[in-house]
């Protein structure tokens, strides 16, 4: 799955970005989530960013990651550049681990994601605390991190199925 196929159509190549935009859009709908789950929107985007950074970075270039972060910042009224920085860091981690995780099993990839997401959440908390000059409660980020890590396997299956169906055709 690591760059084994190239998209043959524009739609297929836009699939990862489409998924990411969809996740961003859905995360801002008033679903009535509790305060502990409200950070899931940005964290699910972390799954998308890491997955494509690891698997096929040419389908989700850094500019797209930056734009996704900017969109989250604009919608959530957070400081501009905040989520972009977190996503780009996670994306860079995924990119850096590509060669090492290429021939490893999914369990190791998942563990690596747990670490990358943890670093992303930690970075977000540290930057948020520094930006607002206050020690922010870490519990919402910790809860959403745990849920995001748990959600990564089913999400990666969905991404794989989508990419498999759309990307392999015509190769």
């Amino acid at each position, binding site marked *: 799955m690591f760059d084994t196929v190239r998209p043959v159509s524009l739609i297929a190549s836009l699939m990862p970005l489409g998924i990411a935009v969809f996740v961003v*859009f859905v995360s801002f*709908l*008033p679903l009535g*989530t509790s305060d502990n789950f409200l950070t899931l929107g940005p964290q699910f985007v972390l799954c998308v960013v890491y997955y494509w950074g690891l698997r096929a*970075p040419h389908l989700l270039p850094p500019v797209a990651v930056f734009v996704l972060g900017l969109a989250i910042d604009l*919608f959530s009224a957070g400081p501009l*550049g905040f989520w972009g*920085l977190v996503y780009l860091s996670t994306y860079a981690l995924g990119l850096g681990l590509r060669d090492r995780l290429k021939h490893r099993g999914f369990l190791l990839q998942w563990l690596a994601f747990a670490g990358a997401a943890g670093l992303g959440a930690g970075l977000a908390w540290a930057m948020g605390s520094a930006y607002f000059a206050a020690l*922010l409660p870490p519990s919402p*980020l910790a809860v959403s991190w745990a849920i995001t890590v748990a959600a990564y396997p089913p999400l990666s299956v969905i991404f794989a199925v989508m990419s498999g169906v759309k990307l392999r055709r015509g190769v």
Partner: protein
Amino acid sequence: MATRRGKKRPSSNGFIARRLWLLGLTLACVVLLVLGRNATSIMQTTRQHVTDWSAPALEWASGPVDRMRRFGSRVGSYDYLSGEVNRLRHENEDLRTWKMKAMELETRVRRYEELLNARREPETKFVTARVIADARGPFVRTVIINAGSTHGVRAHQAVMDGHGFVGRTVTAGEDASRVLLVSDLNSRIPVRIEPHGYRAILSGTNRPEPRLEFLPERVIIREGDTVFTSGDGGQLPPGLPIGVVATDASGAFKVVLYAKPTRLSYVRVLDYAPSLKVDAQALTPVEQPTTTVAGTADDDVTQGATTDESGTAVPGDAPAQQQGN
């Protein structure tokens, strides 16, 4: 880094370019973060434009979500519906008694106001709006509503749900506005704590329960005391119910909100516009007579204090707390 067909992988082609992009964009993020702290008005305008631009899509998408939520809550409540009916029947009887008492008190207060020639609070109009985006993140607590300047919504207006005070509008576009929830880290609301009438500032902490700050020394506050908006600063109407006092593990006072910020569906935006004109003539210092007259202690206390037309002391009063409303 070659594929089975002997071609170069796409990742190796853009290896350096991708890393350069990463570096450049990371720097761009840092620049944006730094600029954002200083050029807040530009950022707010940009944000409001994006909100306005995306409002139709969000409104369209949030409609089915809202209907599903209401359907879900109806189905969920079906099990204990009969019990609820009985409970509500009893509550209704109690409320009728309270309504009678409230009406009686309202009449009495009005009569006293007339007797004292007290100035009445301006009538508060409201606009009902639907929450179309739950724009909350780990560090911000805001929602977007589908009412803007065309509907009479302005920045800094109070927002209520069916239970109590939710927050205030921070920006208003043409068809959508952003509401800063009372739990947001940047929220500061001047409040009054009853029954003793202590003034304080309700500060958001990004936790569900905001904290009470700037309380006077030696206050007697108990858990369960009710917290209302004080109206200090003149931007929010006084007397809006916010919640009840509770204490956290460290003994600090926090407020359990009446409103349900996580289940917001429809909200009311209150249009409160009190006259804040102060008679400048009344504030000019009065020339003191040159002859010294022995005065009483009471004279000393009231010296320098003037009264407005309703008889309220102006400069002698404690200064109103205007905390970033």
